[in-house]
């Protein structure tokens, strides 16, 4: 299959991107300055991320759409206000996760942002679950641009008025350059920022404009170190079909009102795991010293018994040390529990720690 390119591909090349294949797309892993510089620039200034490979699924329908979606997602969608977003999951009957996603209530429907590697399967699953009377559009004509970091609000607001009035996890339509952009205040870095859905033919010019105002393109490499410092899950690593939201320590994303009555796919497993506790749980892990524990690193107790596995691990540029996430048996999931990680055949000390590794306050309201 031919590798797919986003509408910013040329701009990436001009900015000296190193490319990798990701979910069938040619995507920039880093640019000339390198992952650490890109990471730090995002934390201190403003980084632009091409996330156009992700799926933008628009679903339109009448009131019964909300009812049908509530049978799928563990959310209180009836009480979700217009332009408000929620983090959620598409699950199977055993609460195994097909994908994690952001769903936003828009006029006459919903916008769902899906992971690139999962979007086609998600579309198929949702098409089968939902009545055919609803209009579903996995829109390939729109690009998705994230802008993240403390200067992002000022930069974006200088191009599009009033984006600074958006609260965290809300969105709206904005007019710019004779077209409609859907912008949400959200992100994946632990920084304040926005995600902008824009038609493909306008994306390059829009990003050039952001660059001119001082923001810089950031690759997937720094996106990974940023999200890991922020303690955020990456599908295919922390989350997959064999993990449930309870095991992934994402219970907070399940609406309380849905826990009492269930009625969504996977609810039986979720409710029993909440009651009895999951046997394994996702935790933060801090290796001692500078040692990096990568994905699939085995975790042991001091009796040489394997108690878990690392799902993501790297060096955190802002915390200036190694960081990781992984799953451990619930008896070892308390913060400060001492564990051992096996790297290159030797066991090294590490400890379970609180997430996130790096915390900044998101903008909650309008100042």
């Amino acid at each position, binding site marked *: 299959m031919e590798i797919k390119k986003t509408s910013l591909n040329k701009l990436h090349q001009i900015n000296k991107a190193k490319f990798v294949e990701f979910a069938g797309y040619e995507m920039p892993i880093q640019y000339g300055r*390198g*992952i650490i510089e890109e990471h730090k620039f995002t934390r201190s200034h403003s980084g632009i991320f091409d996330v156009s490979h992700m799926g933008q699924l628009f679903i339109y329908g009448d009131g019964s759409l909300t009812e049908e979606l509530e049978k799928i997602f563990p959310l209180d969608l009836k009480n979700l206000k217009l332009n408000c977003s929620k983090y959620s999951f598409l699950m199977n009957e055993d609460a195994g996760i097909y994908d994690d996603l952001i769903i936003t209530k828009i006029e006459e429907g919903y916008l769902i942002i899906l992971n690139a590697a999962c979007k086609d399967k998600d579309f198929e699953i949702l098409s089968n679950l939902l009545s055919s009377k609803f209009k579903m559009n996995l829109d390939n004509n729109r690009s998705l641009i994230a802008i993240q970091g403390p200067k992002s609000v000022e930069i974006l607001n200088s191009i599009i008025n009033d984006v600074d009035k958006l609260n965290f996890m809300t969105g709206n339509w904005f007019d710019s350059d004779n077209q409609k952009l859907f912008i949400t205040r959200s992100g994946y870095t632990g920084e304040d920022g926005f995600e902008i859905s824009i038609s493909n033919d306008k994306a390059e010019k829009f990003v050039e404009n952001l660059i001119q105002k001082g923001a810089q393109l950031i690759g997937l490499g720094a996106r990974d170190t940023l999200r890991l410092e922020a303690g955020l899950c990456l599908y295919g690593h922390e989350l997959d079909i064999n993990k449930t939201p309870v095991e992934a320590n994402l219970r907070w994303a399940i609406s309380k009102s849905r826990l009492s009555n269930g009625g969504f796919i996977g609810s039986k497993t979720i409710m029993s795991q909440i009651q009895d506790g999951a046997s394994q749980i996702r935790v933060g892990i801090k290796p001692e010293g500078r040692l990096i524990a990568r994905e699939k690193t085995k975790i042991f107790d001091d009796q040489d018994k394997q108690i878990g596995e690392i799902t993501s691990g790297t060096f955190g540029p802002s915390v200036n040390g190694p960081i990781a996430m992984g799953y451990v048996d619930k008896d070892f999931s308390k913060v400060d529990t001492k564990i051992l990680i096996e790297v290159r055949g030797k066991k090294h000390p590490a400890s379970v720690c609180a997430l996130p590794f790096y915390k900044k306050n998101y903008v909650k309201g309008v100042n």
Partner: protein
Amino acid sequence: MSEVKFSKEHEWITLEGDVATVGITKHATEMLGDIVFAELPEKGSNVEKDGTAGVVESTKAASDVYTPVSGEVVDTNQSIVDDPAKINEDPEGGAWFFKLKIKDSSELDTLMNKEEYDKFAKETSN
């Protein structure tokens, strides 16, 4: 000091008497990206030509460091363990990895000179 020689695994080596100094090339650091971790062989240990003699890790991945010749490790550069970013800054100078008392100087004959290595690096990165 002898001419700098290079291996296909992107190490450089110089010889002074029977003691060789080994590091990784600038080209290697450019391919690896930001180096955030380094592990060196133990002083006093013996390493075999083309065998593993250390590890470097970037934000992206771990890579083994090989020794271009056999010998006994007589010194290691602790400063790159404490501050791995030095490897990106000065890979072919201050950020050497280890010194070896070499066994057989003829092993150096199999290595590339600068011109050959530059050509090799250019070809393999395309």
